[in-house]
């Protein structure tokens, strides 16, 4: 009790206006911010990969396998913030064995399992099968066995079998696009369907989530590609970078339009919550929404990419601008998630007051825990690239 009072007293001093007693402390903290951010990266990286297979964007071929592995690494980590937040990871299997079809949250396990097993694993398996078989033939020891098991002891690398693989990669990608929309649209749906919260309750929420997810996914693959390639001592493919930046630009335009539409719609509707939301945006969220999300994360990268495209710039300048833009976009999209999750809990349901979010450093829901969760996908991606090298030169001729 004493501890609770000590924790709440400094927060109480920063409460503005009138709030209900149970609104002082936020229930969804930084881990829940991280969760839509991570799933967004999954969906975005997958959509990017699908551009190669379904829409035949040949320039993006160098990033195809990397994008798939990125999606995989982030997808495996995506439920961890939820498990850490709920605090009972040993009970997680229960939502699978006792499915509750009337709860969107309870169906998460199935959406997740579908996306992981029916889409990502299967597509990666078909895509890599021939290479894995050939790697296993050349290797010895544990690596040979890992590759043999991953290939399910498959041996057939005849022309017909490879053709079959290619056909199925395409089919799974086509199934995967609505699945990626489902995965991330679902996360938006969870927020958008909370009708008691005017900051969240919007039918546009799943679509806005989805497009910001694609933005962040493309930017993440761009960053990874630009870091990994020089580290491996290889040359960056400028055509690929140009194409990535172009797609990033187009999707950001759509994302920006959707968010602007949402904003205009809210202002025009002017429901009873509009005053407190306006106050929220102009005070507690000013830095994270107006400065970071809108200017740093959206307008500046848009302007930078547009300028570099209009002017004929040297490749090195292009690379620098793309890299900085992608980093800014990441910060911006993380800020978007922050503004949605934290922003939605900062104002009182009385519409007459605001509370404050104090992030803790230690503990299961603290800053360090979220830093660890955020770093995990990169470690996982490193391991995945060791097991399934996505590089051109690793492919067997």
């Amino acid at each position, binding site marked *: 009790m004493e501890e609770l009072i000590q924790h709440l007293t400094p927060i109480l001093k920063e409460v503005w206006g009138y709030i209900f007693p149970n609104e002082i402390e936020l229930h969804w903290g930084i881990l829940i911010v991280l969760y839509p951010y991570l799933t967004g990266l999954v969906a975005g990286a997958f959509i990017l990969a699908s551009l190669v297979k379904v829409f035949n964007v040949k320039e993006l071929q160098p990033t195809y396998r990397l994008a798939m592995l990125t999606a995989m690494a982030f997808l495996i980590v995506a439920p961890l913030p939820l498990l850490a937040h709920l605090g009972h990871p040993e009970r997680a299997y229960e939502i699978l064995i006792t499915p509750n079809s009337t709860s969107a949250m309870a169906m998460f396990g199935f959406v997740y399992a579908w996306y992981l097993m029916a889409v990502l694993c299967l597509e990666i398996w078909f895509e890599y099968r021939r290479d894995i078989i050939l790697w296993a033939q050349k290797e010895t020891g544990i690596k040979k066995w890992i590759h043999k098991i991953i290939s399910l002891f498959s041996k057939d690398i005849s022309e017909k079998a490879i053709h*079959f693989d290619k056909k199925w990669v395409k089919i799974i990608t086509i199934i995967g696009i609505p699945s990626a929309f489902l995965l991330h649209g679902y996360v938006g749906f969870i927020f958008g369907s909370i009708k008691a919260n005017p900051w969240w309750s919007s039918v546009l929420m799943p679509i806005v989530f989805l497009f910001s997810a694609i933005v962040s996914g493309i930017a993440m693959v761009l960053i990874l590609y630009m870091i990994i390639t020089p580290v491996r001592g290889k040359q960056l493919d400028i055509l690929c970078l140009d194409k990535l930046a172009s797609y990033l630009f187009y999707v950001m335009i759509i994302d920006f339009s959707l968010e602007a539409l949402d904003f205009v719609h809210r202002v025009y509707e002017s429901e009873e919550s509009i005053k407190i939301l306006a106050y929220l945006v102009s005070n507690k969220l000013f830095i994270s929404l107006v400065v970071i999300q809108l200017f740093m994360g959206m307008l500046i990268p848009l302007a930078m990419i547009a300028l570099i495209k209009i002017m004929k710039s040297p490749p090195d300048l292009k690379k620098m601008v793309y890299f900085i833009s992608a980093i800014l976009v990441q910060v911006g999209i993380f800020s978007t998630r922050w503004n949605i999750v934290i922003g939605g809990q900062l104002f009182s349901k009385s519409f007459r007051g605001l509370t404050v979010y104090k992030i803790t450093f230690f503990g299961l829901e603290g800053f360090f825990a979220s830093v660890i969760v955020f770093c995990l996908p990169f470690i996982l991606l490193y391991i995945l690239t060791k097991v399934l090298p996505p590089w051109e030169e690793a492919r067997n001729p």
Partner: protein
Amino acid sequence: MKNFLQKIPEQVKRLSVLLIVVIVVFIVATSLLTPKDFGLVGHYRASAIKINADQKMQYAGQEACADCHDDMWKTKNAGFHKNLSCEVCHGPSLNHVNEPDQFKPDKPRDRIFCPVCHEYNPSRPTGFPQILSASHNPRRICVTCHNPHNPTPPQTPKECSACHAEISSAKSVSSHMDIPCTKCHEASDKHKLHPREYLPTKPANREFCGQCHSQDAKGDKFIPRINMATHEPRYVCWQCHYPHLPEAQ
């Protein structure tokens, strides 16, 4: 049949085996891990009801109190506290019902319990009796003057602020601070005894405010004046201006 099996690509066969393994593991895990009584009565374990029902009972319910204390129960149910159950104030009392002599229920006799509901708080509804316990007869316990079973004030309140503390505190810092409540509201004496049955009047037209605020009204020069004919003629004043704190937006 053999011919048909040979036509299936090798990958599909291997994936099918994996798929079957996954499905079998899922079915086995579901049947082993799902509690046997899950879903019998709803989306939960049926035995959860028994676990909850087996918890030790604490409350008796006010009907049990009425069996012995029916005089007090009738008094309470005729007064303002009619919607409160006895155990709201007296605490969980099943023990007392079972063994009346051994266990006595709580009787809050301090100045802390009643202000849980009656301390001034701007979020409480207008007209709900509220006090500032620091200044309201500070050294007496509540039950000295108020009978909790029939909590009518010992004396008829002289001031409106006795009940309408929020309005009173807002008005006291507004430019209407010097205007008595009765200037705008006519309240019969019966309102003080039966506040909900006999409601005070409220100004119903623009002309009432116009007595002070129209251009040709008599009074001090600093009072804001408006042209009654052109200033939002379709609205009554209080639709935009809160009369108890007219400065508020």
